[in-house]
């Protein structure tokens, strides 16, 4: 072994922050237009539902938010599996962003469900199977985000969140089954619910527009949040390094 005397010690390597685009994203513009169009159409150009009246209009927001909430969680679950397999932090940023946007849409689902339920069913809350499942989704999301907030170490945060994301996805079918079994025990009052397939065409079209516009909105919000995740990680790395 030769006696080495290295005077130039290399600076610790830091992952270079990815270029982030500034400026308004096209997705946002399209999303805003689409959502606005949906609302205008829903309020002015779609017929009033006979039994429920104006309150039914909120129903365009409710199942569409629910769809996005569960879509987001599906992304969280898949990204979690991906992270544990590949250990790529990009996947953890995807999960993190999907979760934060997802929890917002979950909250919107719960609130709109409640707002819709009051004039229609006369109560602010019912243990409707889908609503209950959404409530549990909300709890899982909140637990996921609180867990992330409680861990400083970047890798541990990613690993632990991934574990929770996967277990949460496994839980969902069990909750669904439990609620179903529970409800067969306690027959809830049968309330007339609008059976969606027999909606007139205009309502179906508005629904379709709502689903599409909310999905676009999700993508826009997700992309913004993802950019933020990249910048935050780069900043943390610089501070530490």
């Amino acid at each position, binding site marked *: 072994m030769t006696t080495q005397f290295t005077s130039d010690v290399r600076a610790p390597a830091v992952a270079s922050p990815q270029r982030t685009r500034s400026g308004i994203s096209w997705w946002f513009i399209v999303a805003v237009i689409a959502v606005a169009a949906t609302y205008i159409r829903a309020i002015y150009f779609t017929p009033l539902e006979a039994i429920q009246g104006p309150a039914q209009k909120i129903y365009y927001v409710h199942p569409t938010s629910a769809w996005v909430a569960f879509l987001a969680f599906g992304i969280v679950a898949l990204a979690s599996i991906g992270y*544990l397999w590949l250990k790529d932090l990009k996947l953890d940023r995807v999960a993190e962003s999907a979760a934060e946007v997802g929890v917002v849409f979950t909250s919107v689902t719960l609130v709109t469900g409640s707002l819709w339920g009051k004039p229609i069913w006369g109560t602010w809350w019912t243990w409707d199977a889908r609503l209950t499942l959404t409530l*549990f989704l909300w*709890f*899982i999301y*909140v*637990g996921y985000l*609180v*867990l992330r907030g*409680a*861990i*400083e170490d970047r*890798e*541990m945060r990613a*690993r*632990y969140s*991934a*574990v*929770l994301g*996967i*277990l*949460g996805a*496994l*839980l969902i079918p*069990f*909750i669904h*089954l*439990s609620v179903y*079994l*529970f409800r067969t*025990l306690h027959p809830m009052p049968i309330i007339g619910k609008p059976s969606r397939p027999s909606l007139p065409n205009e309502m179906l079209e508005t629904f379709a527009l709502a689903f599409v516009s909310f999905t676009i909105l999700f993508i826009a919000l997700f992309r913004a949040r993802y950019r933020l995740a990249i910048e935050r990680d780069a900043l943390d790395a610089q501070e530490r390094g």
Partner: protein
Amino acid sequence: MGPSTLGAALLIARKDLAIEFRTRTAFFSAAVFALLAIVIFFFAWDPTAVAGMDLAPGVLWVIFTFAGLLGLNRSFSVELADRAIDGLLGAPVRREAIYLGKALANVVFVGAVEAISIPAVALFYNTPFGGRWLAIAGVALLATIGLVAVGTLFSAMAVNTRLSELLLPMLSLPFFVPIVMPAAQATARLLSGRPVVEAANWLKILLAFDLVFVAACMMAFPFTVEE
């Protein structure tokens, strides 16, 4: 090389129980908490509205989950003091053995709390268990396995975080619902003297939960201790 996975798990479980037996604080806390909670529920109850037999299963299972959480908390905190966990991780045993050992010890711990709570409920709520002790113990065992499987994993994670005492219940309780619901329903059937078969139907979801989550948590555990 080292002992087999099961052998190592038993060693670890015995070690955990030896520590618990030596200090006893966690067990006493959990047991006293359970008894107090049973009493408080009693005083919060209107006996003219609900019969003891109807109240008992719900009370029992709510208490099991909360007393269980107290016990699960201590499961990994004992490893963090002085980095004893490094001693476990440095041994030539599979990480799954550590999970299994901890879970086994937790089953004994939570089981012991349940063994105190069940007679207490029978006593305070005038709910004779008749000849159904064994069946109820069976339900309790199945449910405890599920509670402990999830709780052991989450306590391994929570202990490494800032908000460990808040996080453990926050993460675990949603997972406890598919356990507590069938367990309480089965217990209620058994207490009210219905045929055992009716209770057994509820056990199917409990069994499914146990199978899925014991496997999933055992597979997930190495990810919580690797670096």
